């Protein structure tokens, strides 16, 4: 991989947010190593910057942990779903190869990371000026920050994926194939992403709970079991 190509690919990253179909189509048709690496760098840096602000309120060490865990979550989701997403892309008639599928998903996650990373200075300023976990308003602040961060993640996720659909349509053999592939990828990523984020808890760090990289019971339950249990409890009350 040439350093010049890599630098040019890095400079082209804002085009992901602009959703310039004609330009990004070229990325999908020619997924060079430089372009793959540029997307990976965006995920690493954007994810780390935003991840740090997620955990910072609880403790700086927690911020450091989450700065590692958020890019890790994205990477693990990509790796876990890589094979099935590629198979879906071919079965559903989009004509995308394994490398192109990986590139598509990397571009989508890179857009997410760019949006979240762009908002990280603001999130950090809010965290630094908010009452801390040990203060009397700690519990209220925790809920407010949690809500704010969830809104940012949902906004970045939806915007990144919606921006990418026209590009997928442009490269697929038929528009319907692009939509089907998009839905299949989205469903798969949500299914696996939710479980992996459950395994990689804590992200926000509740006031009073210890600062740790992973919980001791990280592999003792699933996200969906927990949702089901909570739902059942709600119904039986």
């Amino acid at each position, binding site marked *: 991989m040439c350093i010049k190509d890599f630098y040019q690919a890095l400079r082209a990253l804002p085009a992901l947010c602009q959703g310039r179909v004609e330009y990004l189509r070229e990325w999908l048709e020619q997924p060079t190593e430089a372009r793959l690496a540029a997307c990976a760098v965006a995920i690493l840096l954007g994810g780390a910057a935003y991840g740090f602000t997620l955990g910072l309120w609880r403790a700086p060490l927690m911020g450091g942990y989450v700065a590692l865990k958020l890019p890790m979550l994205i990477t693990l989701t990509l790796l876990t779903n890589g094979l099935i997403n590629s198979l879906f892309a071919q079965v559903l008639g989009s004509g995308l190869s394994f490398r192109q599928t990986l590139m598509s998903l990397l571009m989508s996650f890179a857009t997410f990371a760019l949006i979240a*990373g762009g*908002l990280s200075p603001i999130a950090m300023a809010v965290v630094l000026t908010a009452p801390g976990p040990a203060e009397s308003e700690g519990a209220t602040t925790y809920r407010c920050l949690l809500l704010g961060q969830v809104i940012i993640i949902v906004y970045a996720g939806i915007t990144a994926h919606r921006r990418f659909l026209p590009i997928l349509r442009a490269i697929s053999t038929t528009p319907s194939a692009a939509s089907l592939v998009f839905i299949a990828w989205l469903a798969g990523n949500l299914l696996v992403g939710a479980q992996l984020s459950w395994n990689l808890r804590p992200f926000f760090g509740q006031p009073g709970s210890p600062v740790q990289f992973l919980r001791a019971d990280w592999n003792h339950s699933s996200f969906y079991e927990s949702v089901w249990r909570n739902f059942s409890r709600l119904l039986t009350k």
Partner: protein
Amino acid sequence: MRDQPTSPPLPPSPDSPPPLRPAVLTNTSSSGLFATPMVKGTGLGSALESLLKHPGAALYEFTQGTRSWALSRSLLLIMVTGLALFGLAAVDLTRGIQWWATPLKLIAGLLLSALLCLPSLYIFSCLSGLEIRFKAVIGLLLASLSLSSLLLAGFTPVIWVFSQSSDSLTFMGAVMILIWSISLFFGLKSLSNSARAIGMKQSLHLRLWMFIFMVVTFQMSCALRPLLGSATTFLPTQKKFFLQHWGEHWNVSGLGSP
């Protein structure tokens, strides 16, 4: 003769395909902006005229011109002066350090808010469909904040009359928030007009950013409090959200009780 307008930049060579080309003024008539070079130079007077009468001129300089740094200096000076005047008019000059602390906090607070929000403004501009360089985004933000500061300076006599008429910090705070919001609204509206003139396709993302910026400035005012009244320390000793701070003042003043 650096102030003379220059020809538009040459297109990039095929060997170096920069993915982001300079923003092109495409929609100037519908946005009400007429993009022309600043014929009288980029001095203080021309910058003021550009902000108030010909916003398209500043837009041209930041997107296609070659005198963006000179214009930025003039705009920065306008911003600092406007905020300093507003801060001086708002405080009681007999209250210790506040006569210099409030103007300083206003200037530092707005600059810090702009710095914090700059990366997201660039990303949100891209999401809005703008093909714009980071340097141009800095210029457009500076122009919009300078306009806001200029309007704040225009409100100086108004705020001074209120500050001399009332002892209520809650009332003065409310007046300041109102004036701040009005000034920021016009500044951000000019930013929106500029974005439309250079080809914004979706305004939703930029509007969202404007809301976030407004909230950041409010939180900054809380983090740098007190801006009004007397102070024993330069910065607060307790961290708070701005809504909590406003609510506490409202309750203490008795304005919230029936």
